[in-house]
């Protein structure tokens, strides 16, 4: 009689304590687990499908303004607080976790042109069409007291934008000139002008905190150093830039949103050619904001969409739109890299997820591992046509889609024409101009 006994070492499957995870005996012999590529491919396909199924980016809408929203600002120290200024001069402070308005201030007569929080989050500044700069306390006044600004500065011209220094008590405004203010003084400590009569945006560099950049109405972007008496440099582009934003993790890179439907990322050390041209919008881009990780940025456009671009990619990875959202005027990326806020013409502030299919809230370790695995698989098989087809598919409203197609055709026609001209002229007389080179007219020193 032959007796075969199946015997296992208890060490392989017996837990030492009940707190240990269950031991599952595994054999990693590749012959036992064949077809790894095809199996993983199927998993990747499923992962991409699931990702698309769960892509529901819209979180909430904050309504309460009585006019279009003109500017947004994040609280410097609290994630859940957002400030917004409307075209009727009203400023509202929102609590995002409760999704309600905490406070309403009639700050200006006419538009609130710019709003920014102080670096410590204790107060905020607004500028408006009534030629004033006002500083407000972040805390609401006591019961029965009027909303009064802490400080009011009367200026000679309209201010169109404001930004606060990252660590010091100075701020910059722009209007007819770019002014640097000390919080303690009622007149600017420095004002820059370089042959332009109006600016639309001024932004401090968050990393090299003494640098500034501004967009002017003469199609130029001007760089400043707060410590110098004169501006640094100016680029003139083919069309006007509306806003710009510095990369919070890369000191020398900034991105500007342009009227020619594109966004341009520049390296401030080499201004003659943009590092990247980001194309996808079908109308003027009105606002741009970087994610706090500096890996991506979000842009708001007149074409009623928000798009998310990787910082070094020419095309967007995501487009958000809803039926009711009109021209998006301002956009902000939340400081925890999870959400995007957009303020639009039709008086609503919308809260979006930065990653459309992300599951909100706490995740169990197993969930996390599964998500990471799925992400990895998607990355690994992203070049496969089926995966790519699913991953890249987005819905667009009909008119947008048409416009996009039209633009593509126009672009193709122009390219063809240039090609033909080159073909029929003396070799070398019509040089090949790359897309990047086309948009910069000149760099002025």
């Amino acid at each position: 009689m032959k007796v075969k006994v199946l015997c296992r070492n208890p060490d392989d499957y017996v837990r030492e304590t009940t707190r240990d995870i269950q031991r599952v005996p595994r054999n990693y012999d590749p012959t036992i687990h064949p077809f790894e590529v095809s199996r993983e491919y199927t998993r990747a396909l499923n992962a991409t499908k699931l990702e698309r199924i769960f892509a529901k980016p819209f979180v909430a809408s904050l309504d309460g303004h009585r006019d279009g929203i003109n500017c947004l600002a994040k609280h410097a120290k609290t994630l859940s607080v957002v400030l917004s200024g409307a075209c009727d001069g009203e400023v509202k402070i929102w609590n995002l976790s409760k999704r309600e308005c905490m406070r309403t201030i009639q700050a200006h007569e006419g538009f609130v042109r710019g709003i920014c929080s102080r670096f410590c989050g204790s107060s905020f500044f607004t500028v408006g069409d009534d030629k004033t700069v006002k500083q407000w306390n972040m805390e609401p006044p006591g019961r029965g007291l009027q909303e009064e600004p802490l400080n009011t500065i009367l200026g000679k011209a309209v201010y169109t934008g404001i930004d606060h220094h990252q660590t010091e008590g100075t701020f910059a405004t722009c209007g007819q000139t770019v002014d640097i203010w000390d919080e303690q003084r009622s007149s600017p400590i420095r004002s820059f002008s370089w042959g332009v009569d109006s600016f639309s945006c001024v932004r401090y560099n968050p990393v090299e905190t003494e640098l500034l950049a501004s967009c002017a109405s003469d199609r130029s972007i001007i760089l400043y150093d707060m410590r110098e008496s004169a501006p640094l440099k100016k680029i003139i582009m083919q069309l006007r830039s509306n806003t710009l934003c510095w990369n919070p993790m890369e000191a020398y890179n900034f991105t500007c949103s342009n009227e020619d439907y594109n966004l341009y990322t520049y390296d401030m050390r080499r201004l003659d050619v943009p590092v990247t041209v980001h194309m996808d919008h079908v109308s003027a881009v009105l606002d741009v904001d970087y994610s706090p990780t500096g890996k991506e940025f979000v842009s708001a456009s007149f074409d009623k969409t928000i798009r998310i671009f990787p910082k070094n990619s020419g095309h967007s990875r995501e487009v958000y739109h809803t039926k009711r959202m009109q021209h998006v005027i301002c956009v902000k990326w939340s400081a925890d890299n999870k959400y995007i806020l957009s303020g639009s013409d039709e008086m609503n502030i919308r809260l979006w997820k930065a990653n459309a299919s992300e599951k909100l809230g706490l995740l169990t370790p197993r969930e996390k591992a599964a998500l990471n695995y799925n992400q990895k698989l998607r990355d690994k098989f992203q070049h496969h046509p089926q995966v790519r087809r699913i991953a890249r598919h987005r819905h667009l409203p009909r008119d947008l889609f048409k416009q996009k197609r039209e633009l593509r055709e126009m672009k193709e026609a122009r390219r063809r024409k240039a090609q033909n001209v080159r073909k029929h002229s003396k070799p070398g007389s019509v040089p090949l101009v790359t897309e990047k080179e086309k948009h910069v007219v000149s760099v002025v020193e």
Partner: protein
Amino acid sequence: MRRKGVKAVPATMAGGGNNEEELSPDDEHIISASEEEDGSDDESKHAKLLEAISSLGKRKRMKRTERSEASVQVSEFSVNADGTGEKVNLSDLLGTMDKTPGAPNKTKQQLKNLQNRKETLELPLSKQQTEKIQREVAYDKSSKEVSRWETVITQNQKAEQLVFPLRQDPTGPKRMEQVVAGWKAKTPLEKEIFSLLHSNNQPIHDPLLTPAEEASIKAMSLEEAKIRQAEFRKARVLQSYYEAKARRERKIKSKKYHKLQKKAKVKAFLKQFDEMMKTDPAGALEELKKMELSRMQERMSLKHQNSGKWAKSKAIMAKYDDAARKAMQEQLEMNKQLTQKLVVPSDDDDDEERNVEEADALPDFVNDPEPILDSVNPWMRGKLTQEHSEPEVTAVATETAVETKDEGQNGQREDEEEEENEEEKLLREFERKRKLRQDEDDDLVPVPQEEKQVIPVDVAEAEEVAGENVIQISDDEDKEEEEEEVVVSEFNSLFNRLMKSSSVPPVPEQTGAEEAELLDEGLVRVRTMDDLEALQQDVVMDTTQPAPASATPAPSMETTSEPPKKKKKKKGIDPNEVLTKEAKVIKMPLAPTVVEEEEEEVHAEQTAIIKEAFAGDDVISDFLKDKRKQEKAGQAEVVDLTLPGWGEWGGVGLKPSKRKRRKFRLKAPAPPLRKDQNLPDVIISEKRNSSVANHQVSQLPFPFQNSTQFESCVRFPVGQTWNTQTTFRKLTAPKVVTKMGAIIEPMSKEDLPPVKESSGAGSGATIVLGEKVEEETKKARRRNPLQKKKKKSRQ
């Protein structure tokens, strides 16, 4: 008269250019400069004179200047700033230079040269140009400044994983001082504890001296106080040492260490006990009582009954693990030892019941054939219950035993003889019972009667014991109990050894019985197999085996554990009544054994079944046909282009000539060899599958240089199915990790690597270097003790 002096200097330098200056005749009279200017007018002069005369007798006073005429320069100090508008020329100064003898000739020469020069300076740059230059300089400076970030940025771009926020507080253990300094009582519990400490005058922060100690020190003289303080300190230090030592020892996980420790303790205790026996018999008696108590407790508890979690786990392991088996046995033995009475074999029925239970519950190999001392009890009850003064008896017995051990074997023989007699009686009775049991047909009438007599007494006893037990537990601590148990068990074993020397030696056949047990198990497991014939054979073996075993009654009882139970029920003893607590039944998983017997037969049967199932279809020939067809389809066909009658005569019965046929029959080139040419049982299709093509990558994606690179990247699996947990985690680590609810601040200048330039930020760099040096020295210091330790260990 400084004013005059000031005026005088330009006058002299200018060569007396101003003639209008007039001093009034009266020195005391002060005349203002403005009045002097219009000196030419006679009338006014006259008026002035009159005024001067009128003011002679009065006090002197300063007159305020009045601005009567428009002039460019008006001094605020009421001085006519005369000549301030005019520039002082170099020549004016040089005029005096010639006259002054002190000036050196060299400077005079230089001045002359300067004067002779006719060239003009260049025009300053226009405003636009200067601004441009300024801008350029500033831009260069700032772009250089910004370029410092390049290394950090490229590093971050290349990083496998970035964790945001970038600056996070270092996790892990902090230094003691940091933790203590920042700590305050926050929760109500902590506050309560603090208030208690305060009220009891315990030191809280720096435990040096309690207030009471301080007070006592204050009351003493200085020297005494010093001595006392030193004592206190020493005491504290010692205490802390002991505490640390105890903590360390408690943390030692080695079982062997603890075992040795326990043994040493027991030994010490035994020695002490021996001494006690000699010196203090009353104390020894008390100790014995304690042991008795612990025995009771053991009987009450399930501590060593193999019913706990540990025992269960061991029971699982026991199948495979010798050590586990041993541990279980040890525990059981401990139980036995603890529960054994110290007197002549006189166990209660409880124990017997328990043993039976154990036999059910535990794997059989654990249940060693017990010494007759234990297993005999049910038939001993009549005698045992008669003796009720147990502790005293035990005490006497132990004393006698020790005496016999010490003195010699004089009295021992007598005792032994007595015991032997008892044993014989027991044995006889035992055998009788067994025989009665084995014929299953008839129930015994007398036995239940006996037991019925016994039960109530026992239950009462158990209750008493339980009561005592409760009190005991409330008094003593667990640790002490354990120690006692150990001691008691040691004692019991000692006694047992003594007893065994006198009692009947264990029956040698028991080992054989054990083996039979194992075999038996195996046979039982065979029953689960479908192989009926084999089972039948085994059953036959079964029936044959018990016959010789029946000669020795004990093993047979254990092997067939179920029947006796039934009998007992018949006898009317409910184990629940007798046992104070129920021992848990542990179910053992059967070891998976497979008996492969007569494989060939099975195989033949299988093949027969398969044949029957697939009787109709000839798969092999079908396959071969298929393959041939495929091969044919793949072969190039010969195209015949001969046209009959072309260039020749045509008609019925005429064939084109051979030459022509050869010429116009076109043979396509032979296709490449089939891959399955040498594989007779395989068809490999080399056609392109369009459904698969949909899923394939047609172009080489961007970052890859060649197709092999891309393929290898895809081929390498990521999932858990192919990778171990750690590799899986590493492979699937996300590129960007953010912390929930944490604000990600932009990069700040602290993130910059320290600049090594000496010129620019000299002081900062040196400071950083200094810190580095310090760190290094610290590291070195940290390393040194380790090295020392190593050296020590080597020594």
